[in-house]
């Protein structure tokens, strides 16, 4: 009788060991592959670019405090030189170089150009930075002291489309910039200013 019990116990232990060993080796592996690619935000300056004093013989313009322009009877300044530049060589114009020639207090100019969304995502024209001054909406006017002498030398108005959304491949949108040379501008100097247009991708 003892031998029978011993035999049954031994057999049971053997079976349990065998099944336990098999259990420990059952595995299942799942793999999640995630592929991500991102899109591109891109915009560019486009022609046509225009200005009021655009050729020899064109009479100069002036402007009042409310940016009302009128044309005088002399051609002293100008013509204004405009040049689109691709600074990073990616095939897009990203800089517009504007040179006012022989300008003087009271001389006014207005430049127009176009911007185009050539990326793949809608963009918001988020802000404009005029010599470090940031504007987010409207048609801001800023007075600039370009010589650092404490007096304003020019004033600039940025017009059109600030805060607007541009869709990819949409028709280019026009933007204008008005410039008035002020009374305290120095004689015989070259004054430079920078206007940066900052776009952000649209998001939900």
């Amino acid at each position, binding site marked *: 009788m003892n031998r029978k019990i011993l035999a049954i116990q031994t057999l049971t232990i053997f079976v349990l060991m065998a099944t336990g060993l098999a259990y420990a080796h059952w595995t299942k592996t799942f793999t999640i*592959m995630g592929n991500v690619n*991102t899109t*591109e935000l891109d915009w560019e300056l486009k022609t046509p670019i225009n200005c009021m004093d655009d050729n020899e013989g064109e009479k100069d313009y002036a402007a009042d405090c409310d940016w009302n322009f009128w044309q005088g009877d002399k051609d002293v300044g100008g013509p204004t030189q405009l040049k689109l530049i691709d600074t990073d060589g990616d095939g897009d114009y990203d800089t517009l170089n504007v040179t006012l020639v022989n300008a003087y207090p009271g001389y006014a100019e207005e430049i127009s150009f176009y911007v185009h969304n050539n990326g793949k995502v809608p963009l918001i024209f988020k802000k404009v930075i005029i010599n470090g001054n940031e504007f987010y909406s409207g048609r801001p006017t800023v007075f600039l002291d370009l010589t650092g002498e404490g007096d304003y030398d020019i004033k600039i108005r940025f017009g059109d489309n600030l805060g607007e959304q541009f869709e990819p491949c949409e028709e280019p949108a026009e933007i204008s910039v008005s410039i008035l040379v002020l009374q305290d501008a120095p004689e015989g100097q070259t004054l430079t200013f920078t206007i940066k247009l900052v776009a952000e*991708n649209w*998001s939900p």
Partner: protein
Amino acid sequence: MRTKLVEIFTLLMVALMVAGFAYAQWTETLVLEGTVKTGELELEWSCECWDNDDGLNDIGEVECSPNGDTLTITVTNAYPCYEVSGKIDIKNVGSVPAVLVNYRVDLPNDVLLKDLGGYKYELYYDFNGNMKLDDGDLLMATASLVFSGDKITQIHKEAYIAFKVHFTNPGLPENWSGTFKITLEFENWSPQ
């Protein structure tokens, strides 16, 4: 001589009969037949996913498709503020409970992971290329996981893993692509 042979034969027969009788009286055979039927560890999964710009501009796209034991999630045209979410359903179609015993995340070479705890993560673009998370790296996405229950400890019938990835500035590069791989290792449940 003949009589002697008959005696020997008779004696032998009697001895064999006695021995056979005794053997029949003292032998007992027990038989134990054992049959082991094993179970099966088998899981199936499915997935659904969605993004946050459907019905708006619908620039980004997300797709997930299971193929055997591999689930592929493809995100196209991601951009800052784009967000993808999804739910991976796992069904136990075998006959033994399954347990998630381990998972491993393999990232693209230029992406670094920061574990915030609670199954929340931050992904950084390795801008300085030193494959080490430091000040030069910028946040490109946040991610979170939600498991059915507190965590998938056992799958008797079904369970799910929900995920959300939010792409963000300033680290998300333009025109970038990368492949992530997550390996989930399941084992049969056992009392040990």
